């Protein structure tokens, strides 16, 4: 039995944060430098009253509309988010109700970041192939902008908010091959929001500025960029080799690589290290930024519109956890 991606849509919040606006806040930056190094020109951010569920709902409604999907066929909802509406109940349960899905539908959230879409594909494939579900609605939705301190130049430059909706079923345009997943919790402190959950329920209030003048705070998103960079270069090439071997293809057989769109500099280094031809490397971040678990489905959606989603496509997500995952998609 084979499992496929049958449809993908995405939603971006209306508010746009441009490089020009960032340079007004951080005059030492230049618009050209951000675009050249980071690869992002605009990113979308939520308003204070917009939550992950709002974005996910709109992405799902777009999917139903654009792909003419009958919502009554959905029998499982998987939502990947690290910014849920509540500690409880599960945001996927709220979405079952808001989307008007049948009550025989399973629903759960899973907490992963940039590896989340690949994990979602692996979980959805398992649900379909075990006959637990026939049509899985895989949602990714993140509002990292709410975690980022307003003076955090690096993270405000990189990250954008978004949601995606993917229908996983027994037919479709991209067969989901074998997945390769990995975890190394030693990197937990390198990308973290420390306070707010049960370990530190209240605000810690330890905000300080590092030597470069960037705010470091347990109450906001903290990313150790150099360690995440090293982790990526240490881990992803080997994971991708394993994906290729596991799916009985060779590197020459791969037509396109769609990696998590962390930032342009990171991907340039990765593709250079892996000696991947430029024409096989897919980039889609300039108008959306790093949207965490949504980068890969957004990129797949855009690659498909450009007619580039053909043949063997390797996807790979990597980041917070540390957590990583790769998969081969056989595209028609």
């Amino acid at each position, binding site marked *: 039995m084979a499992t496929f991606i049958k449809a993908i849509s995405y939603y971006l919040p209306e508010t746009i944060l441009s490089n020009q606006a960032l340079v007004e806040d951080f005059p030492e930056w230049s618009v050209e430098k951000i675009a050249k*190094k*980071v690869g992002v020109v605009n990113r979308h951010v939520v308003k204070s009253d917009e939550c992950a569920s709002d974005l996910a709902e709109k992405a799902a409604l777009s999917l139903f509309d654009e792909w003419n999907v009958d919502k009554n066929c959905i029998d499982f909802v998987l939502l990947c988010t690290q910014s849920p509406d509540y500690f409880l109940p599960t945001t996927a349960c709220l979405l079952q109700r808001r989307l008007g899905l049948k009550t025989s539908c399973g629903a759960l959230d899973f907490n992963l970041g940039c590896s989340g879409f690949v994990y979602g594909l692996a979980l959805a494939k398992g649900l379909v192939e075990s006959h637990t579900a026939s049509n899985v609605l895989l949602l990714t939705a993140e509002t990292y902008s709410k975690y980022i301190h307003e003076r955090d130049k*690096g993270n405000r430059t990189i990250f954008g908010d978004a949601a995606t909706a993917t229908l996983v079923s027994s037919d479709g345009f991209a067969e989901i091959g074998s997945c390769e997943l990995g975890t190394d919790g030693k990197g937990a402190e390198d990308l973290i929001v420390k306070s707010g959950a049960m370990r530190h329920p209240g605000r810690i209030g330890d905000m300080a500025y590092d*030597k*470069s003048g*960037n705010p470091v705070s347990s109450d906001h998103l903290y990313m*150790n*960029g*150099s*360690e995440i*960079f*090293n982790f990526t*270069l*240490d881990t992803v090439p080997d994971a991708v080799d394993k994906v290729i071997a596991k799916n009985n293809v060779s590197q020459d057989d791969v037509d396109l690589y769609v990696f998590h769109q962390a930032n342009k*500099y*990171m991907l340039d*280094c990765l593709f*250079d*290290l892996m000696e991947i031809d430029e024409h096989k490397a897919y980039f889609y971040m300039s108008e959306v930024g790093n949207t965490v678990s949504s980068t890969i489905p957004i990129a797949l959606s855009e690659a498909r519109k450009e007619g580039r989603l053909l043949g063997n496509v390797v996807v790979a997500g990597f980041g917070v956890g540390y957590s990583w995952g790769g998969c081969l998609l056989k595209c028609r």
Partner: protein
Amino acid sequence: MDINQFVSNFAECFDDTEAEAFSPMLKFKELEEWSSLQGLTIIAMCRKNYGIRISGAEIQEADTIQDVYELVTNKLG
């Protein structure tokens, strides 16, 4: 491993600073162009040219290009 070649490789990590400005004793974090992103470029250069993994903390501890050179040579063994 040659210090002059290392300084030349180091200089290539920077876009706006003239190559002549680079020498082993340059305190590179005092350059106007220095940023955390520049640190990633140096990490990538050390991996690509010397196969050596250095951390952001190690770059933070280094003052001069000579310090980074010695870090890499020590790791090369």
